[in-house]
């Protein structure tokens, strides 16, 4: 017996590799759509809040409520509630594609709120100066707000990506696969502690990598 087999007697390494790939696919796909939906939603929240460029307190109240409701529902429940929606959008309710819909709906409101917070950090005076120069709201968003809050937005993306790693682990419930599913099925239900150890270790490594990439990018774009 090789040392690997002695240490990890139960592990089917190709299966672990497949699970890693599944986790990365779910993470990549859901992060992409979370950014695409969450960024405009965050900008919209920011602009419509009281005292901001396009203050619409009632609209802001509605948007804010929807975001809060989606953020309050535990992800595991959200996933089950969304099965019909997922089926309507992707045609399947299980697998990687099936997991991406609830992952995005769970994470986009969270990300939008972080975007709103990051935009609020932009100096009001800089926005006023842009208005004084005759900038349109669209120009203020694309040329002032987003570039000025870039470090904050990168940090928000990092936090969201890490949260999504946690969510994908729950994706096992809808048969999404991935490292979390392995940890649960074999490690917990199947009493195979080596599975638990390896999958959790891989998740830790993934989170570490995401965080250090995020931190490095924040450092590169901080100009204050």
């Amino acid at each position, binding site marked *: 017996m090789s040392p690997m087999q002695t240490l990890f007697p139960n592990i089917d390494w190709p299966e672990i590799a497949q699970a890693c790939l599944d986790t990365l696919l779910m993470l990549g796909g859901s992060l992409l759509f979370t950014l695409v939906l969450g960024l405009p939603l965050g900008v919209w929240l920011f602009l419509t809040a009281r005292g901001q460029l396009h203050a619409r307190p009632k609209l802001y109240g509605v948007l804010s409520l929807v975001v809060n409701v989606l953020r309050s529902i535990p992800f595991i429940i959200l996933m089950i509630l969304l099965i019909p929606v997922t089926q309507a959008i992707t045609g399947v309710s299980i697998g990687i594609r099936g997991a991406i819909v609830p992952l995005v709906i769970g994470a986009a409101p969270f990300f939008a709120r972080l975007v709103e917070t990051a935009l609020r950090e932009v*100096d009001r005076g800089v926005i*006023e*100066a842009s*208005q*004084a120069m*005759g900038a349109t709201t669209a120009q203020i968003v694309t040329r002032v707000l987003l*570039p000025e809050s870039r470090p904050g937005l990168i940090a928000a993306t990092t936090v969201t990506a890490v949260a999504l790693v946690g969510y994908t682990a729950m994706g096992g419930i809808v048969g999404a696969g991935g490292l979390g599913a392995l940890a649960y099925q074999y490690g917990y239900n199947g009493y195979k502690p080596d599975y638990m150890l390896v999958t959790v270790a891989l998740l830790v490594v993934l989170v570490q990598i995401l965080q250090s990439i995020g931190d490095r990018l924040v450092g590169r774009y901080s*100009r204050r």
Partner: protein
Amino acid sequence: MGRLIGNEPSPVIRFAAASKSYSVDGTLVPALHPVDLAIEAGEVFGIIGHSGAGKSTMLRLINLLERPTSGQVFIDGRDVTQAHGADLRRLRAGIGMIFQHFNLLSSRTVADNVAFPLRLHGDMDEMAIAARVDELLDLVGLTAHARKYPAQLSGGQKQRVGIARALASQPKILLCDEATSALDPQTTASVLELLADINRRLGLTIVLITHEMDVIRRVCDRVAVLDAGQVVESGPVADVFLHPRHPTTRRFVAEADHREGRGPEFPGVTGRLFRLSFRGDATYSPLLSRVVRDTGVEYNLLSGRVDRIKDVPYGQLTLAMNGERLEDALAQIRAADVDIEEVAR
């Protein structure tokens, strides 16, 4: 010049009963009472007031960062309060503005900050923009810092970037919002000098707000004193500075003279107290010694200052005077174009 009608200069900016109130918990609180004021082309006009006096609101009515609650603001004879959308943005592009805290984009280099307004309107190609940026950085003396980020600059340098950015679109009006209040005295002096130089060289109309009489004295042609949302006094700086009428104005002048709180009490000094104010050529003429020789009065110099208001020398002396021919002496002094004000004691 289209803005001249006959010999009468028409104001470049005119407030016509313009007022501003804010709604606080459902009640309207006035920030600026209806104000009528004309600012002429090419002058440096100062608005002085304590914080909360409404000067920031007044300045922002000019480029409609604040809309008046009632009344109008005219620029080149046109009622700008009617401007909206693209029209308003075009109007704003023609008015430069600089700020107390500079308000530069921290994520962009000095050169990109200066180019920012030029890129907004999209009517210049990158070659022309680069050439204009070089020209502006040269004007404010920052050519060597073009590639730096604002965080790497000193306060004075940041304000110079602000000035270059404000001038990029070749505005006819420059608004200065407490532009030197965050700077140390030496940097303040150099920034004010730059503003005065720009005013002279480009013929730009400058409107500045400040709470420091010294800023007004150094660069402004005319001044309006704002107190609790009302213009309480306005006119040429020398007139307002040498003959302040309103208590608020007196306080500002006293602060500038560093004689806060001290009344004109000079125990042990005999005679009547007079404050002599003179400016221009009279400042450097040996008037007092001549008067003393001719009339035999005695004087005692109690306090004084000889300085400049913008480019005009002026002096203000407080004297105690005695003598039989005191009235003759006073008449001679008056005849030499010096204002005399008796100080109660």
